[in-house]
């Protein structure tokens, strides 16, 4: 992997030290080489070619190991286990290069899920090498595997201190990278001063990295923030754009957690916003303003101009989206901005690109609370999204529609949704049904004006195959018919097809929760049996042999309903002849 060029002198020295051991290992190497066949051949060849690879003359490089893993398709586990044992031995070798290659291999295996915690001490050994390539391997391994509770972390404080102060910018850079990942509160406390001094380094490369690592230090060791803050903000004047960008990033993060403290800096940010040429930085600044402006109304007014300009001119969709999001979240009392934002959002939702559609819908959802009318203008587009191919888009559109439901548009919306339910697939179908139920039930049915219509809707919903909402439908049916007297007759009529359809009694997945709805239907029909027109048919239905398939609780209700309907047999139906009909019924029973 990293081609190393050992000088001949080094090689001789190494060989001289451990000649005897070396010979033994060479033989072992040859042995395993022959065993492995094809990979052995590669091994020996690379061993010969890379005589620069030291003691374990046939130590597999990372490249060889990867090739080996790829070659043995079925026996991967065995191969990897064999490799692990070998690595265990290699890594204890005193030779740094061997250690380094072993560490590379174990880092690779770690990525595939094997444990690496046992070699943390060896990581540190490699990290303390002065050779750049070796050091990098060590740092990388540390970055990947060190967790907060790795016990050897205490040992690296001094090492990091030394590297941070190193004259070689790249070494310091590594140390910073590694620190970013493994920073513990102790490390933060000990090293914050060193990182801090790097903020004034002559290399912008280091200044940039130091800024971000400082943020991690703040997270882990909050006391460090106050003294470092002044110097950090000084860096906003830095001549290197990426350093400024880094500082802005850090400030943005801090600001989100604690906007009040950063309000005084708003003028500086404003100036930066107007002069910024880097889209990434502009995005961060816009976001910051989104968090700051709710706290300071005058800020909002000042922002209208620059934001309008950005939204109108920028070709970058991400920046545009960020501006829109800021407007919806923080600046939604500025009508001109909101209007512009809604226009742009409409463009987003009409785009064929599913990503933009999805984001547009989400942003509209945010706007729903404060500007429902603006959102309602785009109802048609939103309804069209219900039939997109992407489930996430459909779901978001549905949530929007649920939020937009009012008294006036409820029946149209429900009708529309019911149409779609026929063609929809699970699990979206369930969501549709749930949405209708929730919309209508909201605020104790405040939005409904025509309950007779609603019970027919409920009856239709009960018949939706594979629905999970049977219980809710049933509960609502009982609820409505109990409270609203006028709906009872229509309910009985609407529910008759439910009870008389024998296919609903079968035990199949399409009839998932329908038994709960049938329970409600039977109960209602029984309670209000005076509205039943065709008693014989209903009694036949309630006595259908397949009723046994239903749960016991439902069957109980069926029996009771049966009795109630039969009990009404002698009663007069509104506008019907009494004597003949009742005698006929008695005979049939």
């Amino acid at each position, binding site marked *: 992997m990293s081609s190393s060029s050992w000088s001949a002198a080094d090689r001789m020295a190494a060989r001289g030290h451990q000649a005897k051991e070396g010979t033994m290992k060479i033989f072992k190497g040859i042995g395993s080489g022959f065993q492995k066949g094809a990979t052995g051949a590669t091994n020996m060849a690379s061993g010969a070619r890379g005589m620069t690879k030291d003691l374990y003359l046939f130590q597999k490089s990372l490249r060889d190991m990867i090739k080996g893993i790829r070659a043995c398709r079925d026996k991967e586990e065995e191969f990897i286990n064999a490799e692990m044992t070998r690595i265990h031995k290699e890594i204890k070798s005193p030779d740094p290069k061997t250690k380094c290659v072993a560490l590379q291999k174990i880092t690779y295996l770690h990525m595939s899920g094997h444990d690496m915690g046992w070699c943390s001490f060896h990581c540190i050994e490699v990290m303390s090498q002065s050779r750049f390539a070796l050091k990098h391997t060590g740092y990388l391994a540390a970055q990947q595997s060190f967790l907060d509770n790795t016990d050897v972390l205490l040992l690296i404080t001094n090492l990091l201190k030394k590297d941070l102060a190193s004259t070689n910018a790249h070494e310091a850079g590594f140390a910073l*990278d590694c620190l970013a990942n493994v920073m513990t509160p102790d490390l933060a406390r000990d090293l914050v001063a060193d990182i801090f001094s790097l903020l004034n380094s002559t290399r912008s490369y280091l200044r940039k990295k130091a800024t971000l690592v400082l943020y991690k230090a703040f997270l882990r060791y909050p006391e460090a923030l106050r003294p470092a803050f002044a110097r950090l903000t000084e860096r906003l004047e830095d001549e290197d754009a990426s350093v400024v960008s880094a500082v802005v990033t850090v400030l943005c993060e801090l600001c*989100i957690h604690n906007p009040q403290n950063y309000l005084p800096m708003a003028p500086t940010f404003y100036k930066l916003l107007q002069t910024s040429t880097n889209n990434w930085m502009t995005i961060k600044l816009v976001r910051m303003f989104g968090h700051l402006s709710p706290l300071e109304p005058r800020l909002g007014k000042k922002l209208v101009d620059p934001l309008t300009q950005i939204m109108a001119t920028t070709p970058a969709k991400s920046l545009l989206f960020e501006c829109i999001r800021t407007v919806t979240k923080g600046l939604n009392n500025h009508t001109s901005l909101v209007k512009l934002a809604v226009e742009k959002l409409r463009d987003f939702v009409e785009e064929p690109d*599913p990503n933009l559609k999805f984001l547009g819908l989400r942003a509209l959802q945010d706007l729903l609370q404060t500007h429902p009318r603006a959102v309602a203008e785009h109802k048609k587009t939103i309804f069209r999204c219900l039939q997109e191919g992407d489930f996430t888009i459909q779901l978001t559109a549905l949530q929007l529609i649920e939020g937009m439901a009012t008294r006036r548009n409820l029946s149209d919306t429900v009708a529309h949704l019911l149409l779609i339910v026929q063609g929809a697939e699970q699990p979206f179908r369930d969501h549709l049904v749930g949405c209708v139920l929730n919309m209508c039930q909201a605020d104790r049915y405040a939005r409904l004006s025509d309950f007779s219509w609603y019970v027919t809707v409920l009856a239709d919903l009960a018949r939706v195959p594979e629905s999970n909402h049977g219980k809710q439908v049933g509960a609502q049916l009982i609820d409505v018919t109990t409270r609203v007297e006028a709906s009872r007759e229509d309910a009985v009529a609407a529910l008759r097809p439910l009870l008389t359809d024998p296919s609903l009694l079968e035990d199949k997945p399409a009839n998932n929760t329908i038994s709960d709805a049938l329970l409600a239907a039977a109960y209602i029909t029984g309670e209000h049996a005076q509205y039943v027109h065709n008693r014989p048919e209903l009694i036949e239905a309630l006595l259908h042999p397949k009723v046994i398939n239903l749960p016991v609780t439902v069957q109980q209700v069926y029996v009771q309903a049966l009795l109630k309907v039969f009990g009404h047999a002698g009663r007069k139906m509104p506008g019907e002849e009494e004597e003949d009909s009742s005698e006929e019924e008695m005979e049939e029973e």
Partner: protein
Amino acid sequence: MTIRFVLMVNKQGQTRLAQYYEPLPREERRTLEGEIVRKCLSRTESQCSFVEHRNIKVIYRRYASLFFLVGVDGEENELSILEFIHSIVETLDRYFGNVCELDIMFHIDKAHFILDEMVMNGCIVETNKTNILAPITLMEKANV
């Protein structure tokens, strides 16, 4: 508002590069990777590139045989992350010349190095390709 992890996974679900910006134990990493990759692999081209897994948003894009996945916190701008993924790929391409999955596999330390130049501590640091590749080219020239 930061990046939680960057993953490069191939179509068979094997992780080619994994960089986590928050401490996560090994077993959890595996389960996380497995679940997310399965979700992404089952999506088609016409669906959007954003997946929600527990409380992490994952933004992904497929380039040839490799999926690039970036997991972020709730507030991050998804479009900018998509652009960021694209700039990672472009940078890798500039460095390796017609980059492919094998390049990343066999030169994983260089890939890590480049990624570390671009993202630090979960924040995007640098997107200018020349700036990113400068240290690594210097390192190779010096080739200690």
